[in-house]
C-alpha cells in the first residue's frame, strides 16, 4: 500500500477547513454575518492585534465563514494558505501589490483575460508598475523580457481567447532562474483539472465567481501560496524579508518561513485596500466547491461533445479547444490536464459580424452574457460586445475574428446544447 499523504480531492472539497460548529453543533458551515468578534479580555485583544495569537478580530481581516473557504481552497491546491477577496480582480491586485511597487516590472502572457490586461497595461502603469507582454508559448520571449526590476511572471493556465495552454514548467523555470515567483490564474481549470503548484507555479489565484462557485450567483477571488518560493534566498523582496514599519516592524519571512507572502498580503493588502469577501459570498462559493469534481467532470464531458460537433460543422472554420488534436497545444494539454481542458472555448463562424449577431440572437438555451463558469451554458460574440469598438484588423491582431464566439458550456444535456447550436447556425447562415 502506498503511503497516504493527504485526503483525496473529493473529501477535501467537502470537509477541508470546516468542522462542526462547537456552540450549536451545526454541521454545515454557518454564515457568520458579523463585522467583529468579542475579545475574551484585554490581553487576548492585544495579542490578536499583534499576531501573538490566532483568531478573528474584524471581518475585513478574517471571518470564520470566509476562512473555511480559504483553508478549503488551500487544501485543494496544496498551498500553505489562502486569502479570499471580493473578486478575482481584487485577488490579482492583492497578489501584485504585496510584492511589487512603483518601479517594479512584470512579465505577463499576452493571452490574458481582458480585465487582467487592463489592470496590468493601463491601471498599474499609473502607479509605476510596468508590464511586458509576451507570447506565452515563446520561452525566449519570456526570458528576453526580464529586467533587473522584474518581480513577477504571470499567465493563465488556459489563455484568452485562443485557449493557449501555459507551459507552467517552462515559465516557472525561467522565473526561478531570475529568482522571482510565477503567478498563475487557474480560473478556467480549477484544482480539479490542474494543480499549478505541482508544475512549478508559486502563487495561484482564481476568480471564484466562475467554476468554483459554479452557479453564476456571487463574485469572489482567492489567492493561494505554495509556500515553496524562498523569498530570503531571492533577495529581491524586502517587503517580506525586512522589517515592515506598518506592522510592528515584523519581518514576515522570519515570522513564518513558508507563509510570509500570505502574512503580508493579509496584514497589509487586505487591511489597507480592504477588498475582502463577504461571508455570504463565501458560503455560496463553499456550496459550489463541495460539488466541484462532479460539476467539472460534467462540464468537460459536455464541452467535448459540443466542441466535436462544432468542429465537424461546415459553417465553422475553427474551434480553439486544446482537447482537440487540431489545437497547437493539444499535446501539452494532455500532459498537464489529463482530466480535460475545461469548458470554455472559442470558435470561428464563416460569417460576417452581422451573421455572428444572428447566431447569438437565435440561441435559446445558451445565455448571451459576459461571464463563464456557470451551471448554464453561456455565449458571447466579442466583435459585437466586448470588442465592438475594434475594426476587423484590430480584432485580428487580438486573435479575434468577426465571427469568433466564446462559449462556456454548462451542465445541461449535451444533446440539447448541440441542437440549440445547430439551430442557431442555420439562422446565422441565412
Amino acid at each position, binding site marked *: 500500500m502506498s*503511503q*497516504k*499523504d*493527504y*485526503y483525496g480531492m473529493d*473529501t*477535501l472539497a467537502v*470537509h*477541508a*477547513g*470546516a*468542522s462542526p460548529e462547537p456552540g450549536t453543533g451545526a454541521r454545515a458551515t454557518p454564515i457568520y454575518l458579523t463585522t467583529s468578534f468579542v475579545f475574551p479580555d484585554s490581553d487576548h485583544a492585544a*495579542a490578536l492585534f*499583534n*499576531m*501573538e*495569537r*490566532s*483568531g*478573528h478580530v474584524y471581518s475585513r481581516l*478574517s*471571518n*470564520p465563514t*470566509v*476562512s473555511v473557504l*480559504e*483553508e478549503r481552497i*488551500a*487544501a485543494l491546491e*496544496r*498551498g*500553505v*494558505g*489562502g*486569502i*479570499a477577496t471580493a473578486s478575482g480582480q481584487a485577488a490579482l491586485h492583492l497578489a501584485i501589490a504585496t510584492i511589487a511597487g512603483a518601479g517594479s516590472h512584470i512579465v505577463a502572457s499576452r493571452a490574458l483575460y481582458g480585465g487582467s490586461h487592463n489592470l496590468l497595461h493601463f491601471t498599474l502603469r499609473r502607479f509605476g508598475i510596468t508590464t511586458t507582454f509576451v507570447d506565452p508559448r515563446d520561452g525566449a520571449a519570456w526570458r528576453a523580457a526580464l529586467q533587473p526590476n522584474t518581480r513577477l511572471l504571470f499567465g493563465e493556465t488556459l489563455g484568452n481567447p485562443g485557449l493557449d495552454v501555459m507551459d507552467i514548467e517552462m515559465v516557472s523555470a525561467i522565473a526561478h532562474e531570475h529568482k522571482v515567483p510565477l503567478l498563475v490564474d487557474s480560473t478556467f481549470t480549477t484544482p480539479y483539472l490542474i494543480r499549478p503548484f505541482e508544475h512549478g507555479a508559486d502563487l495561484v489565484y482564481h476568480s471564484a465567481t466562475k467554476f468554483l462557485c459554479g452557479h453564476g450567483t456571487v463574485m469572489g477571488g482567492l489567492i493561494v501560496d*505554495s*509556500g*515553496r518560493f*524562498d523569498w*530570503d534566498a531571492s533577495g529581491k523582496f524586502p517587503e517580506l524579508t525586512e522589517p515592515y514599519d506598518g506592522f*510592528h*516592524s*515584523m519581518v514576515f519571512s*522570519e*515570522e*513564518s*518561513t*513558508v*507563509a510570509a507572502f*500570505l*502574512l503580508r498580503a*493579509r496584514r497589509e493588502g487586505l487591511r489597507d485596500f480592504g477588498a475582502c469577501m463577504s461571508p455570504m459570498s463565501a458560503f455560496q462559493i463553499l456550496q459550489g466547491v463541495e460539488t466541484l469534481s462532479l460539476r467539472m467532470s460534467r462540464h468537460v464531458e459536455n464541452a467535448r461533445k459540443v466542441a466535436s460537433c462544432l468542429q465537424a460543422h461546415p459553417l465553422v472554420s475553427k474551434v480553439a479547444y486544446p482537447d482537440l488534436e487540431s489545437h497547437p497545444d493539444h499535446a501539452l494539454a494532455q500532459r498537464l490536464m489529463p482530466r480535460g481542458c475545461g469548458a470554455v472555448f472559442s470558435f470561428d463562424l464563416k460569417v460576417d459580424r452581422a451573421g455572428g449577431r444572428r447566431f447569438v440572437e437565435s440561441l435559446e438555451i445558451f445565455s448571451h452574457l459576459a461571464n463563464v463558469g456557470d451551471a448554464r451554458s453561456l455565449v458571447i460574440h466579442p466583435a459585437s460586445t466586448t470588442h465592438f469598438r475594434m475594426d476587423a484588423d484590430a480584432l485580428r491582431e487580438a486573435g479575434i475574428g468577426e465571427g469568433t464566439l466564446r462559449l462556456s458550456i454548462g451542465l445541461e444535456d449535451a444533446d440539447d446544447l448541440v441542437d440549440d447550436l445547430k439551430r442557431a447556425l442555420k439562422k446565422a447562415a441565412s
Partner: protein
Amino acid sequence: MRFTVDGRQAYAYTGGRPLRAGQPLVVLVHGAQHDHSVWAMQSRYLAHHGYSILALDLPGHGRSAGPALETMEALAQWVCAAVERACDAVGIEPVPAGVIAGHSMGALVALEASAQKPEWLKAVALLAIAVPMGVSDQLLEAAASNEGRAFDMINFWSSAGINHHPGTPGPGFSTYIQNRRLMERQAAGVLLTDFTACNNYVAGLDRAGALPVPVLFLLAGSDQMTPPKAARKALEAAKASAAPVTHIAVPGSGHNLLAEHPDETLNALRQWLPTVLG
C-alpha cells in the same frame, strides 16, 4: 537575530522584541526537519509578555549553518553554547535565569541539556516527547532513500484530523501543508541525521531520573509520532527524582501541537513559566 557559535552562523527568532537584560529567558528548540517558525504562536506572545525569547534554528536547519549535528549530546552542547553566544552578542552577561523548552527531538535536546547543568537553567519543558525516541525502520529507510515519502509519513502521522482551528499563524492557513513545506525547506540529508540522533539517544531515562531542575511534560493526546504512553517511563522516572514535575495533557492534539493547539500550548507554558522562573 544572527550570531556565531564556534565560528559558524547561527540564528534565533526573538519574537519580535530584542533580548533584554533582567528578563527571564525562554529557549525554544524545534524538532527534526523543522526550524524556529514552529514556535510562532508561542514565541511572539511570550516575547511581548516579559520574557526574552531565543527560538533557535539548530545547526543545518533554517538559517543556522550546517552541518546538522549527529548526537543529542552534541545538540545539547550547541544549544547551551548558542544561548551564551546570543547573550554575548547583545551584551547581556551573565545569561539570565531561563528555561529550555523543546518539541519532539527538541525535547530530547532539552532533556540532555539539563545534564549539562548550565547555571542559568532553571527548568525544562518537554513537549511531545518519547523516551526512548525510537524511529521505525520504515521511516529511517525512507529518510535515507526517499525524503519526500518520509515527509508524507511524518506529516500524516503528525496531524490529528483534517482541520485545526484556529489556523496557524492565523485564519485561512493550512497547518498541514505548512508543515510539509517547512520540511521541504531543510537541506537534503538533515532528516536522516536528526532521526539517527533520536534513535541512538539512550541516556534519556537516566537524564529524566536525575533531573536537576523542575520539568513540564506537555503531551498531545492523539499523538501518533510520540504517543503519551511513550513518555510514561520518563514521566515516572522524573517523578521519582527530586525535581518538581508538572504533567499537562492536550486532548485531541496530534504531534504537531504547537500549530494544531497553539492556544492550549501557550496557555500551558504561560501558566507554568512563572512557577519555575518566579
